[in-house]
């Protein structure tokens, strides 16, 4: 067992975990953060995508011990004061989900994408979410949602959107 101390969605947790435990298992089984889901066993589907210190990661490909000392943000931590993150709102507004199973990972990846590239073209969006599989939507409305969110998260967009967007927009050099 290894002791880890991790901040998840703003709360600090300290736990003993098996060294082989995956971050996604830790989130789901130990913390009850079942908003993050498992869709495959080969890191192809991206359903388990979360942010680790501001970068999107597939939490099935990260060990819980690697999150020691890190900040994890999941889909459950996006809402601020009852306000949806602009990306969540955009997924709703653009009917970018059907069964919703890929949605948490897709939203987390899309936020990360805009952190890298605030104004992506359709091709850049499609390539940016290539690691996240969706079986319901054909991706078209997801692309629309990301474009919509990008326009609303741009500097100059309304202040409330900015305040909820900024702290969680993914980064990466």
């Amino acid at each position, binding site marked *: 067992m290894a002791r880890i101390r991790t901040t998840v969605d703003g709360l600090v947790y300290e736990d003993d975990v098996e060294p082989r435990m995956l971050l996604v298992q830790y989130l789901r089984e130990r913390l009850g953060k079942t908003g993050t889901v498992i869709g495959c*066993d080969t890191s192809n589907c991206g359903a388990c995508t979360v942010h680790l210190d501001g970068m999107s990661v597939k939490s099935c490909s990260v060990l819980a011990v690697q999150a020691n000392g890190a900040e994890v943000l999941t889909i459950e931590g996006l809402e601020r004061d009852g306000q949806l993150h602009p990306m969540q709102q955009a997924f709703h507004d653009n009917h970018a989900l059907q069964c919703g199973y890929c949605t948490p990972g897709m939203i987390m990846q899309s936020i990360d994408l805009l952190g890298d590239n605030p104004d992506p073209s359709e091709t850049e969006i499609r390539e940016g979410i290539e690691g996240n599989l969706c079986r319901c939507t054909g991706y078209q409305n997801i692309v629309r949602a990301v474009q919509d969110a990008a326009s609303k998260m741009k500097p100059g967009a309304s202040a409330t959107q900015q305040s909820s967007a900024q702290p969680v927009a993914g980064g990466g050099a």
Partner: protein
Amino acid sequence: MTTTENPSTPAPEIGRDRRRKEDRRLITGRTRWVDNQALTGLLHLSIVRSPFAHANIKGIDTSAAKQVPGVVAVYSAADIGADQVQLPCAWPITKDMKSPQRPALAGSRVNFAGEGVAVVVARSAAIAKDAAELVEVDYEELEPVLDMEAALQDGATLVHPEIGTNANAQWVFDSGEAGSGGDVAEALKKAESDDDQIVVRRRFRQQRLVPVFMEPRSTVVDPNSEQLTMWSSTQVPHILKTMLALTLGLPEHKIRVIAPDVGGGFGGKIAVAPEEVLTLLVARKLGKPVKWTETRSESLLTAHHGRDQVQELAMSVTKDGRITGLDVKLIADMGAYLGLVGPGVPILGAFMFNAIYKIPAYRFDCTNVFTTKTLTDAYRGAGRPEATFGIERLMDEVALELDMEPLEFREKNWIKHEEFPYTTVSTLTYDTGNYEAATEQAKQMFDYDGLRREQQERRRRGDVKQLGIGISTFTEMCGLAPSRVLGSLDYGAGGWETASIRMQPTGKAEVVVGVSPHGQGHETAFSQIVADQLGVPFDDVEILHGDTQSSYKGLDTYGSRSLAVGGIAVVKAAEKVIEKAKPIAAHMLEAAEGDLEFSGGKFTVKGTDKGVGIQDIALAVFAAHDYPEGIEPDIDAHATFDPENFSFPHGTHLCAVEVDTETGFVELYKYVCVDDVGNVINPLIVEGQVHGGLAQGIAQALYEEAAYDDQGTLLSGTLVDYTLPTAADLISFDTANTTTASTTNPLGVKGVGEAGTIASTPAVVNSVLDAIRHLGVKDIDMPTTPYRVWSAIQNASGHAGRADEANVASPGAGLGSTARDMPEGGNL
């Protein structure tokens, strides 16, 4: 009581692009997937699965697994009676259909790689999986049975020796015998000796696919509540409940099945799965709640597959382009066992090969065959994509032989809009449609003539990237289904659907439906219907589903039936609510019932401004202080709707692809579809269904294949190898609707869930071939991967390619990366 002043009817909900009610919990991670279920004392199940396709089980040693700390029990089949179970098949398509026993765990012989042979129960899923690795099974390998045609030959190894054959059933429709058309054998014979006719014969392969719902299957059973409770990731909670009772001899009223949030199904969760039965058996044996959740690899290997047919087609046609006969001979791979509706899936195609065309003589002959592969059953479209692919590919081939523009050939033969209702050669009556209108609009949106010119330009210049244009003018039958028709097809159940409306004292409406959504947006669409029917606000409607305690009767969701059948049950229930409320309204308004009219949620006395709202009547009957003698103080209602006919969506799909003639890489260039799905309740949801359907149909054409090696091992057993399209593989589609309202239901709706998948596959393959046919390529098996396309070009141009014809179609040849920077495919 309220008095209406200036009755203003709210804008109709039907037709509005309402954002979905369902979304909130899904976008915030507050979902209720089965695997999220955590019960005190919950145990976890892992299944030991056979690595061999066909083998006798000589012995199982569970001793090492039992020693692992945290393991509660290890069971082989006999320990829990799993080998005595006969998992149900609800569709005996012929009287003499062979139905080998399908156990929950194999007892003495395994018949496909992945079949369960033992289970491990432990306090955590990880411990159960670790211990499952320690179960020693002694197998005696048998010859696998992999090729469905070879399996039908004399002397072939038998999957199930006890039934004496690999043939499951043969099902024939003959229009000559049915009286709906001529004798096709005569038609073909006549055509062969007629200088004014030709006969075109083609053989097409429908590869095996995997549904790949994103949520892996999961089941939790709590045996300790008064009703044994099963949460399962299923499309069919009601069917599952009844079948569990019938299969296991349990009293049906002691079972409760809950399908909470279900992450996609596409037909893949229409099942009474061995794992569901095992979880139940183990939970009952141990008296503890038990969970089973599959891994993705386990899902690809063991959840049912779809498609997998060999199609031999013959069409006779006059030289001026009139079809005179169509002969269809199919062999369909059932895999090792029969699924819930597996044997009936190819039979649904019998009614769709004639498609939108007027065909005077038609015969359909399908032989189902057993092999030692994962069983096949429903996958989005179920029988209809296979048929649509066959006919729409054949229409292109015949047009070529006639040297006729493929759209023109189609138009010469399709049913004209003024000919509806039209009874087809396969005996279905299409109520409405307008193929001319959909095609005209699609051509304009596509710039059909412009793209044809561009194609000619590229050919003339000899561009490396050649343009191909593919057509699919499809129809389908959905809204499954009229119960009497299902009876005539020997299906084991009806096709009705139910709905109940429970009016709350505060005027809100709880609507209980028997259909069971897994991404379709029923809560939103049905709320829109109820809002219009009862005149109550959209937000005052709550849709309940997926729990057999609240939704006690239903036939669940598949076959694009939820709106066309379930939605109509909702309408009928609402009509009953209004009917029941009427005498109470009359009483409250001191008027005669005959003087009342209902509109916008209110009963009003004709010619006056007196009125009372349905929501106020709900409160009045709750109080029940003052209501007419002789009636019950209640306006709740339940309705069952049995459709009189299928519905027949149709559309014209046009696809343009660029094929790189040097690499074989196929890229989507433009995709236009104009679908007629009848009246639209929510255009946003309809468009979403079309997009997703297109993606799956395109995936069959270009990317996906469940391939086995010569030992019967699934090669595409992970999402690395089973290549779902990513966002980067697809383009934005141009979709639109034309509308001819269905005349067989009061909403005029047709169903949209499967249309995109059914229509798109032949459009894409036709476009790929259209791009490179001038190079001598005649056909390419699906998926048309870069490797296959490149090889076909090489072979056609006389170069000895890196693969001969046989290899091009060999298992696994279709596996390839779709990455643009790896144009040769990952398997080279």
